[in-house]
């Protein structure tokens, strides 16, 4: 009845392979870019890439936790916008205030999500669909219907958060990496992470086994909101303005990133690191398409770009599930 050791090792290996499949795809794409495009491997492009994609990384991380518990958070894009406005409005009162304010605004929407889901028993998809609208409305209200809310230009610390460098790395990139390290510790080394996975794997069972299911769920939505808030802060700092209309469709990018990372939307399994890889992979495809266009060999209209992005998503997800399934079987 026990699996033989050889079989066991083989299955472990295959699980690894499936996890590293996306990583391999990422590395291959980078090599492809490096060989094909001049300026692709420049430090400038690297830091540009990180500055922009760190926001997607952070949102995907939050989304990953939510999806692990079997939920979904469609509100993140609007939360990014809301938090960026809050950060801009608070920027005259110091960088720290702005950071805390942005994250608190995100966490607050997350809390509302969590409470509606657990107390009113409304499904996450619908709840966060509603807050997607609501948070956008709030962002526009706070921004007084203007397209951008100017940041205090004299607050250098605030500007540094989005535009500065730390140890030659863009600060947003550093924030993202720190967040992912913390997220990884949280998921695999703390009981909370295990409990979140358990809730995703079987909510009723978790309840009967005595886990505080509601508290866990509320926590992951708060976490997702706070991380989206952090992304909003980066956005405001980087663009020098709060952006109430930004973030449209980010939730779908985040979901795609998580899925490409091999996490099941049904919850119960998943990995923080492959989410990072998944999110970066999707970002890279944009970068590569820009460079390809610049090369001028084949000039793609933006319309073709979305067709290609759709096809690419399909391809990666397929590869991912194929590899994953093969490892399951043995």
């Amino acid at each position, binding site marked *: 009845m026990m699996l033989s050791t050889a079989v066991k090792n083989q299955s472990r290996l295959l699980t690894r392979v499936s996890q590293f499949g996306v990583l391999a795809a990422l590395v291959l794409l980078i090599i492809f870019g490096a060989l094909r*495009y*001049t*300026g*692709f491997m*420049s430090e*400038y*492009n690297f830091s*540009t*890439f990180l*500055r*922009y994609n760190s*926001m997607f990384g952070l949102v995907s991380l939050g989304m990953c936790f939510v999806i692990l518990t079997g939920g979904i958070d469609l509100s993140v894009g609007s939360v990014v916008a809301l938090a960026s406005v809050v950060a801009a409005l608070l920027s005259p009162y110091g960088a720290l205030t702005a950071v805390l304010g942005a994250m608190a605004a995100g966490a607050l929407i997350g809390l509302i999500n969590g409470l509606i889901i657990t107390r009113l028993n409304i499904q996450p998809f619908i709840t966060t669909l509603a807050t997607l609208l609501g948070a956008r409305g709030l962002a*526009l209200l706070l*921004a007084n*219907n*203007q*397209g*951008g809310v*100017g*940041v205090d*230009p004299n607050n250098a610390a605030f500007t540094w958060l989005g*535009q500065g460098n730390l140890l030659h790395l863009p600060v947003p990139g550093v924030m993202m990496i720190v967040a992912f390290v913390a997220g990884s510790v949280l998921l695999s080394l703390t009981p909370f992470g295990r409990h979140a996975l358990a809730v995703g794997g079987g909510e009723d069972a978790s309840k009967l086994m005595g886990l505080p299911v509601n508290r866990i769920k509320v926590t992951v939505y708060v976490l997702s909101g706070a991380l989206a808030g952090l992304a909003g802060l980066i*956005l405001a700092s*980087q*663009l*020098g*303005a709060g*952006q*109430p*209309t*930004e973030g*449209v469709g980010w939730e779908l990018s985040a979901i795609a990133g998580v899925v490409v990372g091999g996490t099941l939307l049904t919850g119960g399994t998943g990995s923080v690191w492959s989410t990072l890889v998944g999110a970066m992979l999707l970002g890279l495809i*944009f*970068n590569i398409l*820009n*460079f390809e*266009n*610049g090369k*001028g060999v084949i*000039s793609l209209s*933006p319309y073709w*770009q979305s067709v290609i992005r759709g096809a690419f998503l399909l391809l990666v997800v397929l590869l991912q599930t194929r590899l994953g399934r093969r490892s399951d079987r043995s």
Partner: protein
Amino acid sequence: QTLPKLAAKSTYRVGFAQTESNNPWRLAQTKSMQDEAKRLGYQLVYTDAAGSTAKQVADVRSMIAQKVDVIFLSPREDKPLAPVVKEARNAGIPVILLDRNIDPALAKAGTDYVTFIGSDFIKEGQRVADWLIKNNKGKMNIIELEGTTGSSPANDRKKGFDDAIKKAGGFKILASQSGDFARDKGRQVAETLLQAHPDANVIYAHNDEMAIGAVSALEAAGKKPGVDVLVLSIDGGKEAVKMVVDGKMNYVVECNPRFGPEAFKTLQGYAKGTKYPAKIINQDRDYTPQTAAAGLSSAY
């Protein structure tokens, strides 16, 4: 720091960072740029930010990384693009702004970028208001169809119109709601507002698309567009100008998207060392029932 020089060459690799391509106006602008580049034999490196300022920043940066010769930028917003404009200058790439400007407090023409070519959105709103004031038939009740909430043309066209109207006095804006610059949404909003405010006799739309939607809405409600209710719009595309000719619309201010020739002429001039003012304002026409027929063939 000063503007980088541009060597005079027979061909250039030119970046064009478009904001979005979800409306006919933008499409016409892009096409004009592409056509002109092709005519001159230049290579156009084209990006589309799909309505996201953050993506547009990343797009411009990728152009910088690719070391294009010049960047044409249609900034989605006035503040966020300022840092990348400076980054381009520092990387030795001159930037020419199209159709929307950058906050002068953050970046200056002549030092940070070459110049701005475009129209004045506030002025456009004002021109519509001026026509209405001039053609005032007494007791004008206005429905305003706004553009996408938060976008700068929507805000400016509203500001220009509303301020002028308020100053003139005797006009009433019954309702002002967003129709998202889109025909279908504009139609639906107009249908609803006309139903709630049957006494409306003017519809001012921030662009042609919504105005055309409003004409459909008026017809569906059994009213005669252009007669029972005046329809005013901005942009001046062929379809709208045709409606002025047909009497379904009454006044359209042009906001010409054909930037190509002017933009590339400026590029070549800059390479030759010509000095440009901070703003090159397009000479936009307008179409009244009297002038529309004549202008129809040249409308974009």
